[in-house]
């Protein structure tokens, strides 16, 4: 359901894979050029249907996303990071949680 809404929404980029685990919604945004991953994450958050935890799988750290998350009252934390050739970041796993009000 989530995937269909994101893919069909005008102005968004196709290719985001979404799944649920017991404690979070996951979205795989690897392979998308900036700023598509940031836009997809904010779109998912702004839809307001994912509960309190979202985990994004990315291939670069979305540093410009952080102020947007702060503005929306969400915390973020890098929970996994892997490096490839010559110290280049290959994968970032970012856990975002809605702040308690």
């Amino acid at each position, binding site marked *: 359901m989530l995937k269909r809404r994101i893919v069909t929404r*005008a*102005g*968004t*980029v196709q290719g985001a894979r979404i799944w649920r685990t017991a404690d979070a919604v996951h979205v795989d945004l690897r392979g998308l*050029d*900036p*700023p*598509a991953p*940031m*836009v997809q994450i*904010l*779109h998912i958050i*702004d839809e307001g249907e994912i509960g309190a935890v979202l985990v994004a799988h990315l*291939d*670069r*750290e979305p*540093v*410009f996303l*952080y*102020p*947007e998350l*702060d*503005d929306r009252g969400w915390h973020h*934390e*890098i*929970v*996994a*990071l892997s490096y490839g050739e*010559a*110290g*280049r*970041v290959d994968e970032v796993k970012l856990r975002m949680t809605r702040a308690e009000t």
Partner: protein
Amino acid sequence: MTVAATFLAGAKSRLLPATIPFRFFAAAAGFQVLMWLALTLNSGEVTGFRGGVGPVLAAIHLLTLGVLAMTAIGASAQLLPVATRRPLAAFWPIKLVSWLVIPGTAALALAMYTLQTTIMIPAAIATTAGLLVFTALLGDNLRRAGSLPVVAAYGWAALAALVLLVGLGVALALDYEIALLPDHANVALAHLILGGFGFMGLLALGFSHVLIPMFALAAAPARRSSLIGFFLAVSAVMVGALGALAGSAAMLTLGALVGLGACGLHLWLMHAVLKSGMRKRLGLSFVLIRVAWLILPTTLIVGIAVLYGLAGPNGSTLFGFLLVGGWLLTFLLGVLQRILPFLASMHATRPAGSGPPLTSELAASELLKLHSICHLAALGLITVSIALDLTWLAAIGGAIGLVGSGAFAWFTATITRRAVATHR
């Protein structure tokens, strides 16, 4: 060290220390104040400026090197390592750029203002050396930007324009001492085209493909259309610069017409981005950006009118002002007003028990509102003053611009202090 701590340390290392990008942004804000001050104090020479060393040429270089290039260097140093996913191998080369370019620009502008050609040449050489180091750094980063082909293509073309630009700049500076150029005015026009439409213009168009979608929260423009726009823009700069060097009105006209095509396509792509964006209320910074977008094609039309004697006696002055003070400065200030609060928020310390300063709070500063209003008013007044040859109006416009630039410098100083304090 825990696993989490290791991750956080890694994340922090990918952001440059705040002192590096912010030294360029702070210098740009300071040079903008000096630029408006120079224009205000010498408003009698602004409307009919035809070139030559003096206060107006100093003001132009405070704007181009001091504000535009300084901002481009700071933004590139901050954004590209993030985009290419690899931090800078060392900080000293980008610091070296600042040590050469910031005092070099100040000395160059002072030498031009006070007609000291003996100071001008070493200052031009120091600035050139700094720009070449920056070229090497940017080139090294672009080489690794495999997933951003449009931005990389614009970046490479901008770098090529920069190399030609600084070469012609040094030749122009030397020409004041040893008269080596066959036609100083033609080379000066090529220098202006390579700087305004080439280096800075192409960087502005290239970064727009990431920054405007990021600000509007939209997908980037379609790659194929963007690359067509890139080829049109680069062709326009090449034909225009060659036309200027050859003194050919036909080639300059062709360059301007191709440039209008590139401009039309770029604006259409940006319109589509804004239309599809999740964020509809884009704030005052986008008023500046939209005004800049209107000025870009206007500049090219005025340029064609100048070639055929249809722009009045001050047409060439109007063309130069619209290019660097209108399109480029207005666009860049719009981007800076948007991006500085972002960067400050990322770098600033978290007060105990609360989050970092929110981007929206920083962006809503009254100082930024004052700056935007004053900039647009100054732009309008100086444009009219040049068109109608009214020096008193140029003085009023300059004074208003000075007030606005002071507000922006105050804002920049405030957030620079907050960002830099984190790293002490």
